[in-house]
């Protein structure tokens, strides 16, 4: 009898273990945004009250840890209902090709495209694939921007005033004069988190667009213009000038952005290069900080200074999730005006919903005013090979620490470019 009881019990455990899990009403979201976790949790509670659906926000930070986590989860096919893909567009492409990301075009176009029209076009572009895109992805919209962002320069009004500077610089020469004035009164000039090399890449690409324009930059990525071209040398020379004119704060090449943000917030440097997310960070570090937003000073007055921006953070829906519909409904709710205003006020990020703009703080509005000048690798037709990008960014670091000169770095980057082009041809 006892034996029989154990056999039946074991069978029950086995059967329960093998039966398919009942579809739950929970939407799980994986993200990396430490500054937004509290606001997300509040919104999830509100959503639960309104709809009865549980939304769980799981935070994995910093962003590189998060990136590794979603790659591992994709390999094990255990991605949550909603997640975000960080990094260049090629990564998003890999997830789409592998069937992990749902095409949301039909959802965006429902009700005369009401959802699509409510959001910034530049933000949507990051997740959009046009007809005949180079990645050969089925045209459509594959992600939902929850905020927009752009990366510009900031100036400390009080430190500039101490150095007798009344107007912030708009040209590169004016910028260098301002730095000289600041140095004379013992104030460091410029700080940025260039220990995270994508920020060097971002700054360099701003100047590449300003010096030679988008067509020539793309031609370089296609391999039609060498990095030894005089315009690229000019771009490398920007960093040499920053080095020679003592523009940069000590230790900038290994400084993480958190430390750079701390330096600017604690008034250790007069200028910073940072994204619109900094408004929230600076507010927490030093709420008395008086600062303004400016575009990086131009070298070439003939061309605009394009800056990186667009969708700040985007979420995608897992195409193989059983709760796909619930996930889409939640994202529609999250990007509606009320929730976007709440997010902007709580986290001081630029909202993705245009209708929320009139209600945001002034500094954010200044950031938002440059949205028309934004560009981003995710929307470029061509992206540079990651190995070339690494050589480019490390080369700039070498210039910054005085180890190499622009011409040498240009030649080295071009060498890597040629090697990679040959490797691609072979395969």
């Amino acid at each position, binding site marked *: 009898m006892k034996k029989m009881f154990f056999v039946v019990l074991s069978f029950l455990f086995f059967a329960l273990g093998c039966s398919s899990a009942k579809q739950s009403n929970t939407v799980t979201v994986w993200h990396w945004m430490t500054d937004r976790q509290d606001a997300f949790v509040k919104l999830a509670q509100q959503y639960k009250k309104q709809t009865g659906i549980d939304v769980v926000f799981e935070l994995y930070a910093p962003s590189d840890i998060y990136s*590794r986590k979603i790659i591992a989860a994709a390999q094990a096919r255990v991605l949550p209902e909603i997640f975000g893909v960080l990094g260049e567009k090629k*990564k998003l492409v890999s997830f789409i090709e592998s069937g992990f990301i749902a095409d949301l075009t039909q959802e965006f176009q429902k009700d005369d495209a009401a959802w699509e029209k409510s959001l910034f076009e530049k933000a949507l572009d990051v997740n959009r694939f046009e007809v005949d895109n180079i990645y050969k992805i089925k045209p459509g919209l594959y992600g939902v921007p929850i905020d927009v962002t752009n990366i510009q320069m900031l100036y400390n009004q009080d430190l500039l005033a101490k150095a007798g500077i009344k107007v912030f610089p708009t040209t590169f020469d004016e910028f260098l004069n301002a730095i000289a004035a600041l140095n004379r009164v013992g104030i460091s000039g410029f700080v940025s988190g260039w220990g995270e090399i994508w920020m060097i890449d971002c700054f360099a690409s701003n100047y590449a667009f300003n010096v030679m324009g988008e067509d020539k930059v793309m031609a370089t990525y296609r391999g039609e213009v060498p990095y030894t071209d005089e315009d690229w040398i000019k771009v490398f020379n920007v960093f040499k000038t920053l080095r020679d004119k003592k523009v940069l704060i000590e230790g900038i090449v*290994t400084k993480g952005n958190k430390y750079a943000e701390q330096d600017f917030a604690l008034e250790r440097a007069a200028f910073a290069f940072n994204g619109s997310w900094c408004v929230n960070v600076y507010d927490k570090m030093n709420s008395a900080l008086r600062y303004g937003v400016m575009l990086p000073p131009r070298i070439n007055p003939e061309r605009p200074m394009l800056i990186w921006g667009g969708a700040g953070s985007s979420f995608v829906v897992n195409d193989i999730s059983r709760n796909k519909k619930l996930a889409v409904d939640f994202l529609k709710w999250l990007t509606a005006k009320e929730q976007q205003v709440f997010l902007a006020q709580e986290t001081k990020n630029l909202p993705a919903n245009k209708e929320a703009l009139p209600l945001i703080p002034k500094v954010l509005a200044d950031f938002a005013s440059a949205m028309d000048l934004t560009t981003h690798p995710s929307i470029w037709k061509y992206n540079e090979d990651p190995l070339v990008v690494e050589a480019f960014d490390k080369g700039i670091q070498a210039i910054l620490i005085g180890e190499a000169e622009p011409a040498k770095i240009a030649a080295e980057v071009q060498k890597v470019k040629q090697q990679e082009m040959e490797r691609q041809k072979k395969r």
Partner: protein
Amino acid sequence: MTANTRKISFEGLRELLGGYFFILPAVLIFSVFYIYPFVQTFILSLREWNGISLNSQFIGFDNFQEILQDGVWWLSMWHAAYITLIALTFQNALAFALALSCDRDIRLRKFYRVVFYLPPVLSEVVVGLIWQWILYAGMQNGEHVGLLNYFLTKIHMNHLVHAWLSDPKTALTCIAIVHSWKGFGWGFIILLAGLQTIDRQLYEAARVDGAGSFSIFKNVTIPMMIPVFVMVMILTILGSMQVFVLVLSMVGQGLVYHTEVPVTRILASMTGTSRFGYACALGIVFGLILMVFSFTLNKISRKFKQE
């Protein structure tokens, strides 16, 4: 007769199967968590794969060929060797000196043991961040913010003030020193345990024979400690060659290639340039190099033991 034979063979079979049954969990766990990942890593090292796509391309031993010509990889190996060298000398010398001190009847012996064992218990990220602040190079209101530079200016040694982590001449050495500071506690504990296993009668006998302190140290302590030294050396080499969290927390994504170590290189190949196949090949080469080191040291240790 037939029935008897049948009975024996059944019992023999049961015994045999019983044996296999008992080792089955261990074999399964070993296969799933050790053999399968290793085989899979090797298979991936023969392919070009971005880590996400379901498709990958077989490229034979191309990744391994590329490693031979990858200057940055071999530079990172040299950096790891440099850190290891400093750990083997500075870290272990400090650990041994402190272990010798704590092996004697001194006051607050237990307190020192706890204090010396604190750094290894701390997270590498925390240690990295603390030291980043100590070595910070910036200034505010004319004063250095970093503790080391501040201290140097206060003792009028301004000529030594330095951007420690962003100068190629000092960055790697700073990392190596911090690594040694964090790691000496392990060596201290193992060496202290080794010292305490030496039979006290040996010391007494040596003293009766008229041996001085240095002679006892040279002829008793050192020979008895050789197996422990070898073990500490193996652990130091394996630990130091694989250092990377400290590097990431102290210098972020690196100072050009001056602070690159093998694991950061493998990480860069995986997440930076999305070359999982190449990263797997790097992992295999690195693993083999470490295995060769361990086997060689183990052999040397056995030879010493025999002598």
